[in-house]
């Protein structure tokens, strides 16, 4: 049984294979009738124990564009409220006939536990501050579209690295694809231990701003305690925000990425968010295409991770 749980250790070949397929699926979702029969009769279950707009919607959109059926589950209105355990919830969804499960949970490692119980492929849709592999794929795609290849690119990931599963996934995807990654954050927002991370770090964005081909801004994650480790929102913006002034200092073809939801006025100024070099909406479109590739390869048994 193959699962997609983490970006750590995924080979370049597997990443490129998924991105290549995603390019083909982009063409499908731009058609007048954006649907192909590849997964007809399969059922994809989305188990989101934590709030999500774009990840949940785009997995469901991806499943439907492949003609799969979807089962979805929201904790607020489920038997979790009555005390049902994660394991029993998973076994119930399995018994309903799910052929693949997408799991988001606030606890690190939750998707690995689900994979032990599910007896079907599992995709990690985000586990706490740990991993979010499909986000890393959809973030790699606009870089590939814009630059042709990630080999030799210099990418900055700016902001709340410590609480970010996006950063943990993207570091491994970007570097496996050949880019050099610098994490830029105040020391309090860096993970306590960076051993084994193939990255450089810096705590002064202005010093290195002009070095990068892409700047990836992270959201300040108030729900994971991210707002309590710097003095004020204004100070965060002043030191780490992509203000209009910083944006104008970037190299002319540098692009700006953000996983969404964006908090305009903190990590990104509104004028930057609306600039064509800000690829946030491309990331959303790509989100559906890369998730189609993941579902197609996992249910086709061809994903080798």
């Amino acid at each position, binding site marked *: 049984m193959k699962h997609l749980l983490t970006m750590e250790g995924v080979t370049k070949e597997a990443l490129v294979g998924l991105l290549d397929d995603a390019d*083909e*699926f982009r063409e499908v979702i731009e058609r007048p009738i954006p649907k192909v029969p590849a997964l007809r009769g399969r059922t994809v279950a989305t188990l989101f124990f934590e709030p999500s707009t774009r990840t949940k919607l785009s997995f469901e959109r991806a499943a439907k564009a492949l003609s799969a059926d979807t089962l979805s589950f929201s904790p607020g209105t489920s038997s979790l409220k009555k005390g049902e355990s994660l394991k029993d919830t998973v076994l119930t969804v399995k018994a309903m006939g799910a052929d693949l499960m997408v799991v988001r949970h606030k606890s690190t490692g939750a998707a690995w536990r689900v994979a032990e119980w599910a007896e079907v492929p599992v995709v990690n849709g985000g586990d706490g501050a740990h991993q979010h592999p499909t986000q890393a794929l959809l973030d790699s795609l606009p870089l590939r579209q814009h630059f042709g290849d990630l080999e030799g690119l210099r990418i900055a990931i700016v902001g709340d690295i410590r609480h970010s599963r996006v950063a943990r996934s993207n570091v491994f995807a970007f570097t496996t694809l050949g880019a050099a990654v610098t994490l830029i954050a105040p020391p309090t927002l860096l993970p306590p231990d960076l051993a084994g991370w193939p990255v450089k770090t810096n705590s002064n964005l202005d010093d290195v701003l002009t070095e990068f081909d892409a700047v990836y801004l992270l959201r300040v994650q108030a729900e994971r305690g991210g707002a309590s480790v710097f003095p004020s929102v204004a100070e965060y913006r002043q030191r780490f925000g992509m203000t209009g002034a910083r944006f104008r200092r970037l190299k002319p073809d540098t692009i700006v990425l953000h996983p969404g939801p964006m908090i305009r006025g903190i990590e990104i100024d509104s004028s930057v968010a609306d600039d064509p070099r800000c690829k946030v909406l491309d990331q959303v479109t790509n989100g559906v295409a890369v998730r189609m590739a993941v579902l197609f*390869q996992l*249910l*086709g048994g*061809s994903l080798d991770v």
Partner: protein
Amino acid sequence: MRAVMTAEDVSRVLRRIAHEIAERNHGVDNLVVIGIRTRGGPLAIRLSELLAEIEEATVAVGILDIGMYRDDIDRRPKIQLGPTEVPVGIDGKTVVLVDDVLYTGRTIRAALDALADLGRAEVVQLAVIVDRGHREIPVRADFVGKNLPTARSEHVMVRVAEIDGADGVWIEDSAEVEGRTA
């Protein structure tokens, strides 16, 4: 491995099929030649060039990828998706699908589904280099290069110069197929 068609045979067959296509359709107006990836692609391009030469007209050509339309994705090794490149609309057109080998018919079924998602062709015809029999669904070819009686255990290989370096058709018997997969 036994050769059943030489490069010259393949070339003659393509020329004959081109003439048959022109004859059946009273010319090449309204015609789109679409190859099924992978080996149907270069064969379609060659057929369109032959048709253009015979009829002194330009003939639209495209390539269709059917990976997303297969009904057996969990029963095969990795399906390599490739781009579908059909540069013209097919609504109201006569589409000639081109593939190398016609066998169970399932590839053609998938191709017809893929084609239907591109538009509504007026007529769809099928051209193949080799028809080896053993259909599993009711599909037939309109233009056949060579009818080749085979056993299911045998393997028919059509090679095209653009992909494999040279044209030709070979049959491997069951012992060779087993030897290769063992």
